[in-house]
């Protein structure tokens, strides 16, 4: 078909596109899901200290984290899938962080931004948690005090790869669990709850 330009009059007809054929691809649904999840993170910025300022720089226009599909910052844990812990977490904040993490829906990932969140940093002190992995699991550690925006972006890019691997693992685990459940149903004739438990 020859390329055409759009008529100035509005019509309901679809605009003819200069294509060489119909555009469609075949894939598995899981691959589509993986692709969508890893290219559109909804981060929850748990920012407490200096790192939060660098986080702001990262999402601001100069560095623009939107280029990596991670700019939809959500302050509700129910709407987020990655938790970016930016700043020192002390013993007073620890129960809060744990609660926020627990409130996030699965699957979820955690980025520990900066030396304090990773290890307590240079605050080896009476009120500072020596790394958030004391209470929640961490997927990516970004070093620095604070990390440069480039460092945080690199961490997010690493997380993208990990998300795909993790989702594959989760699916595998899910299938096994399902099979085990079906077997249990076949053997005992009861519900699968016991077997799952």
């Amino acid at each position: 078909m020859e390329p055409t330009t759009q008529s100035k009059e509005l019509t309901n007809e679809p605009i003819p596109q200069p294509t060489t054929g119909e555009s469609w691809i075949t894939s598995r649904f899981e691959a589509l899901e993986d692709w969508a999840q890893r290219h559109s993170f909804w981060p929850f910025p748990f920012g407490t200290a200096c790192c939060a300022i660098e986080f702001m720089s990262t999402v601001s226009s100069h560095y623009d984290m939107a280029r990596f599909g991670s700019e939809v910052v959500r302050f509700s844990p129910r709407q987020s899938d990655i938790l970016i812990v930016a700043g020192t977490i002390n013993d007073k904040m620890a129960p809060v962080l744990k609660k926020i993490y627990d409130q996030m829906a699965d699957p979820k990932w955690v980025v520990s931004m900066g030396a304090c969140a990773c290890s307590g940093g240079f605050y080896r002190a009476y009120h500072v948690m020596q790394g958030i992995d004391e209470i929640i699991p961490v997927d990516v550690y970004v070093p620095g005090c604070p990390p440069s925006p480039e460092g945080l972006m690199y961490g997010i890019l690493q997380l993208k790869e990990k998300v795909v691997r993790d989702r594959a693992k989760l699916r595998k685990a899910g299938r096994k669990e399902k099979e085990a459940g079906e077997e249990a149903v076949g053997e005992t004739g009861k519900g699968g709850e016991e077997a799952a438990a």
Partner: protein
Amino acid sequence: MTVDEPVAAPALLEKYGDRITPQDGPDQPTWVVRREVLADLARDLRDHPEARFDLLLDLAGADYPARAAGGPSSGGGERFEAVYHLCSLPRKERLRLKVPLPEADPVLPSLIPVWKAADWFEREAYDMFGFRFEGHPNLRRILCHEAFQGHPLRKDYDPARRWILTEDKIYRPQFDLPEGEDDMFERMTINIGPSHPAMHGTFRLVAVLDGETIVASDVEIGYLHRCFEKMCETHVWQQVIPYTDRLNYCSSFINNVGYCRTVEKMLGVEVPPKAVWARTILSEFSRIMDHCVCNGATLVDVGALTNFWYLFQPREEIYGLLEACCGARLTVSYCRIGGLAQDLPPDFMARAEKLLEIIPPFIDDVEKLMDANRIWLDRSVGIAAISGEDAVNWGWTGPCLRASGVAYDVRRAHPYDLYDTVDFEVPVYYGGDVYDRYRVRMAEMRESLKIIRQLLDRGIPEGPHIVDDPHVALPPKEACYNEMEAMIYHFKLIMDGIQVPAGERYDMVEGANGELGFYIVSDGSSKPYRIKVRPPCFPIFSTFPTLIRGGSVSDAVATLGGLNVIAGELER
């Protein structure tokens, strides 16, 4: 060297007789006061027509176990000491009160009836040292969590001893409120924060609402208390500098300057002109950065997101200059005791000139968008207003105080570095509300640019960037590798650190939030004995529940942004 006693001193010293003992202080007059007369003396100091100490700057605790044990240099004193720093704005006088307290019974009267600023300072002294203040209405921990045992700044507390807080122990404020006559709605208590964007991630507000109106509230802080003062006591003098970066991390360079200046005064070191020049310029750039964050965050909290992007761009540009100087963007640690960490980059002038061109259009844009913006005016004019007199009584300093009509600026009242040689205005507004706080900050950015302009016109002063004193500053790398003497000095300085002569000193700079003071005690060893920071936003934030009473929750959000409370500095 001694300093002049306050004008009111003879009258008061006569009145209180031997219950006040004046001491020689190298920086400001110091009185050792018996605790029985503290409350009366405080009232006299505030109200005496020749004294008028209207501003309580700071209350620091200190622990001297050696004194109580009767060591050689003990002087037979008591173990604890409460140190008050007072300032008289009309007379520009300063005074330090030291109140010795026995170990068995560290009790002293609360000074809240005289200075409201004492409220949180007393709670902090209780938390850190276990001092008990008689008459304090709400004497509970402020920085450490509820399950914490002991008082961490006492010398016998292990710096790494932690306590675990479980969820069931979290503090839940109780409000005992009389029923109002015109209550239209059922009262509701809501909790905002600490993990809430309007609370900037680290404060917790519990408010009782009558419909939309806040009738009572309580704030809880300490979610970023990271033991700055205890950490200082376990590190040598130079190693404290990176910790000071993380106080007010929006303008970390000013903190560096404040700390280094105080130590330099104690050492009696003269900083080379080049370092002084660069410190003044970079302090002003840092002030611009800080005001950008504050105003940007305030405006984004009320929904004006565009301004946030506009105001963050100048920050990125200034980061470029700081990065060229020292390699870091945010937490710079560019100062050293005696000067700067390294020489200025060759393109310093060009970069600074470029910044002076880049920054003003951003300020113009924001002012065009906001100054007459109907929504912004409705959200800010008359909101959380405070009179100048009240603000001083609450211990306010800095832009927030100047928005209430009190023209107190450390750069003007007690000039340091090059501030007495440049021409600048101290912007003052009189509304005392959220809008005027915003206006003061916008005006100050322009004044800062003016100061930088004048200094750049003078050119970079000749000479070294750090003092040429091998007991304070490391010799140049070249010399360390080639000369025996330099290598020995290098070794001594790295292994032993700087030896600061015994004594105490309070010194201040104008931080981006107000008077940033450092009260430092040295016992002559290679580590500080005690460092107390006077954080400007600590007394300001203690006013928050009073400011938001009677307003709506959305007013509280706008108010918090305008106060520029930085958690790192607030809680240290």
